[in-house]
């Protein structure tokens, strides 16, 4: 087996494959450059470009407002990181409640259904407004009046409902034969869910979950509606007295800078999963 040498036909074939691959790369490169140059040219040559450049892309203003916006942005990032943990737990709990069969859990199941229906139906921005201004107005003892806190709760409730449905679709997508074979081994239904179904389901829904998190990263900007000095509120403040929109662009760039790594990570995770679970099965 070690004495095999590729035949001349095979060497010729490799050359052809190589040149086909080179051609693909060439087409991709030329096309990409052409498209970007064209888009750039159209934007720059538009009649209003000079005005837009002055009001949206003022380098000096960007530099001046950057530190304050960055301080505000830290609030967004913190909120995102804290909320994410709670959303994952809440979502899974609600999804499990919805797929449970036990008669004892019927009230929980009904609450779970009502919760997902209600909180997916209310626009997130309204939820932030209602909780951010409403709960402090109740003047309840022992509850914080911090609007930042209540805005975070609103995001958790809203995204928890979405994430619950993502989990549930993952659980439903696992073939019933998996539960059957787990039960055949003597596992109870909760055990089958815990050890067989949910691990597979979670793997399957990682891409849509991360998709929701990218969306959440951006939606932390909604807390600006209750007057928390996050990146967006700070930027709006600056645009008010500078009469220049550059601070908004600064905020946009900040959000892009943190979402792109997550998006790439999502892609990478999806590809790795595909390679592992479908090795050789085509």
């Amino acid at each position, binding site marked *: 087996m070690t004495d*095999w040498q*590729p*035949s001349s036909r*095979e060497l010729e074939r490799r050359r*052809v494959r190589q040149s086909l691959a080179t051609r693909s790369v060439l087409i991709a490169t030329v096309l990409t450059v052409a498209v970007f140059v064209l888009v750039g040219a159209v934007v720059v040559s538009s009649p209003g470009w000079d005005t837009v450049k002055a009001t949206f892309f003022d380098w000096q203003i960007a530099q001046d407002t950057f530190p304050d916006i960055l301080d505000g942005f830290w609030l967004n990032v913190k909120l995102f990181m804290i909320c994410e943990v709670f959303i994952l737990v809440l979502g899974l709990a609600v999804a499990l409640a919805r797929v449970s069969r036990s008669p004892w859990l019927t009230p929980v199941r009904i609450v779970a259904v009502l919760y997902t229906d209600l909180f997916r139906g209310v626009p997130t921005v309204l939820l932030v407004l209602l909780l951010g201004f409403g709960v402090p107005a109740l003047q309840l003892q022992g509850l914080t009046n911090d609007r930042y806190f209540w805005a975070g709760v609103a995001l958790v409730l809203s995204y928890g409902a979405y994430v619950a449905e993502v989990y549930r679709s993952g659980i439903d997508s696992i073939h019933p034969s998996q539960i059957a074979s787990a039960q055949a081994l003597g596992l109870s239904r909760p055990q089958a869910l815990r050890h067989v179904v949910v691990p597979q389901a979670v793997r399957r829904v990682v891409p849509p979950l991360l998709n929701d998190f990218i969306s959440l990263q951006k939606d932390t900007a909604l807390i600006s509606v209750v007057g928390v000095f996050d990146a967006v509120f700070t930027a709006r403040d600056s645009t008010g007295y500078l009469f220049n929109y550059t601070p908004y662009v600064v905020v946009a760039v900040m959000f892009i800078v943190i979402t792109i790594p997550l998006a790439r990570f999502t892609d990478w995770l999806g590809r790795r999963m595909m390679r592992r679970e479908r090795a050789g099965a085509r």
Partner: protein
Amino acid sequence: MTALLEVANLRKSYGDRVVLDDVSLTVQPHDVICLIGSSGSGKSTLLRCLNLLEDIDDGVITFDGREISDPRVDARQVRSRIGMVFQAYNLFPHLSVLDNCTLAPRKVHGVRRGDAEARALSLLEKFGLADHARKHPDQLSGGQQQRAALVRALCTSPTLLLLDEITAALDPELVGEVLSIVRAEAEAGMTMVIATHEMAFARDVATSVCFLDNGRILEQGPPAEIFSAPREERTREFLRRVLPGGGE
């Protein structure tokens, strides 16, 4: 008569593992070639190479006088003339049996829906599946599903049919109903390459039997010769294991 399919010095490896080593095979029109050998001997990989589902590492595959192992060949065009049936049926679960059967004729061969359905229904009827045409594959038994998969492959009137251990997932009762279709096709003159563990069937239907061992065709000949007077010791050993009381 020129060969329909000619494989010369085919080599396929996955990394360091050589799966097919210097395999040569000639298939004349109306031939029924049965590939036998233990699991992992390369039968399935050979079939997948013939259908261009795998890139080969060396050798030449010629189909109908044209080299199809050339990277510039349009694989879709080749596959549109070759039918393939898999061990796990691989029917599309979201389509009815009838839609499974008419998908390729309509989308690849440009047949109108009415004509495609008429042909599919007549084939389904012929193989006892007329009642199941509107059902989804999951509602059918394994044998019915595999028969439907065979009909799906036949609907495009392929020049060559590749069958990859199509009865391996079926219980013995259901094997017969699937093999009877294959037998009927063989009698009708269909050219086939079949990877199989059904020795009795191979002896009965094959025009030629190939024994694969470790990625090589160790022995090839008419079934009478292979099954009653194999030349190679490895072939004898294999047949002793799969045919209790058979072989030598």
